[in-house]
């Protein structure tokens, strides 16, 4: 099934969150949600709507052992006992090598050959850019901007993959909630009108969908500003510039 119909996606998202999908349909839609940002957005909005219905559910205390079990599964490795871990690791290593001597040697040899080929000629599998990225030498090609207030205090980190349509705005310094209006992020292209990119959160991180890829929208943009807007849909930035910064190409 091609999930391109907006009404169908909206219906499936609401049914998924409500919980009325059958187990098969539920699994299929969960996979779709993992793959597509637009579907995740619909699901998140329905979770926000329906989540409010849960406030009337009476609270109950679980057994204390529940936290014990959660804690044992989530404590960082540095806080876990070392002796037991080493013992498990040792026997695990032995188990890992056992199959090669018991008829699965061919599989291991094939995997080894593939690995050697990958190491010798990595460009057969992935681009040189991706290799540099994965080896930690380079960050993915992105547009990024760090916006500061008039005193030079960093306030926002804006980022988007070069060929992506998702923009992330992360608050990196305290931002006062405006008494009225909202904070809007603008891109200022060199020879074109300013373009509103979205509302700026005052805490945490927000993600939003851009109307086109960052490459098409931001390739000619060198400056980003945040203004205080009282108009619901401003056509150009107000004169009240709150934060500003450069838009840089990360490649």
């Amino acid at each position, binding site marked *: 099934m091609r999930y391109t119909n907006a009404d169908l996606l909206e219906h499936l998202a609401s049914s998924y*969150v409500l919980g*009325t999908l059958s187990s098969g349909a539920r699994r299929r839609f969960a996979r779709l949600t993992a793959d597509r940002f637009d579907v995740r*957005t619909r699901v998140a909005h329905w979770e926000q709507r*329906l989540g409010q219905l849960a406030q009337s*559910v009476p609270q109950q205390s679980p057994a204390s052992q529940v936290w014990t079990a959660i804690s*044992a599964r989530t404590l960082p490795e540095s806080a876990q006992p070392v002796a037991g871990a080493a013992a498990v690791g040792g026997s695990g290593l032995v188990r890992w090598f056992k199959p090669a001597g018991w008829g699965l040697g061919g599989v291991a040899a094939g995997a080894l050959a593939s690995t050697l080929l990958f190491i010798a000629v990595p460009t057969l599998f992935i681009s040189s850019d991706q290799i540099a990225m994965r080896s930690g030498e380079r960050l993915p090609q992105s547009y990024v901007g760090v916006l500061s207030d008039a005193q030079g205090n960093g306030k926002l980190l804006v980022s988007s993959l070069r060929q992506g349509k998702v923009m992330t705005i992360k608050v990196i310094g305290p931002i006062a909630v405006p008494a009225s209006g909202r904070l809007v992020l603008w891109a200022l292209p060199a020879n074109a009108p300013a373009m509103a990119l979205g509302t700026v959160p005052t805490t945490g991180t*927000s993600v939003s969908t851009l109307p086109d890829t960052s490459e098409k929208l931001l390739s000619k943009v060198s400056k980003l500003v945040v203004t205080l807007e009282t108009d619901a849909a401003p056509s150009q930035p107000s004169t009240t510039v709150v934060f500003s910064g450069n838009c840089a190409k990360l490649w």
Partner: protein
Amino acid sequence: MRYLPKTNAGGRDLDAERPHISGFAKNGQRSPCDVLILRDMKLDTRSLEDLIASAAQSDHKCFATLYDRTNRHLFGVAVRILGQQQAAEDVLQEAYVSIWKNAGVYRSEIDGQTIQAMTWLIAIVRNKALDALRSRGRRKESELPDWADGDDTGDNAPSAAQSLAPSAMHLLEQATQSMHIEGCMGTLEGSYRQSLALAYYQGLSHSEVAAQMGAPLGSVKAWIRRGLAKLKGCLDTRGVMA
């Protein structure tokens, strides 16, 4: 049953520790949640969003504080759907492990809409509970939870806690009142609201709601679809969600 032994391999008595004092900050650094341990927990003013953000940085103390602040609410949600204490505790455990692993995924705003931390947490627990419920397979009508009106005296009789629990309709009415949309939702026919309530609060599928209400499956699907559209419209009017 996924409980681990009360004492771990290091000999530490985990049960003796309250959740908020058994955490570890990444690399042994001081956690921003340390202060919460030293002072009265009532002084805790960090938002759930902040605690999730700290958990995303592997701050286990803040994760423990998050658990301390939210476990009763989330456990109530799991019990409500699963109807069994043990199954709900298993789901709660899986949900918090998932929260720990995926804390970095949480976004406080998506496409201009605020996503509250608690609704994100509730969604994780509900999804785990619904998956557990569906994995049990199709339930017979007699096995369906009947929280408030059950008169079954056999093996499927509700527990004392279940018998005292409010009905799904009552919970929906309470929730819509506190959301100030009871008037708007009240214009829906009772069967629409009841089908929506049974699906949400008891985790029933379309066919299970139909069996519970003794109504045709097609009608129930239409009622629920209309109920969801109405809820969305009511929240839009209130300006809760655009």
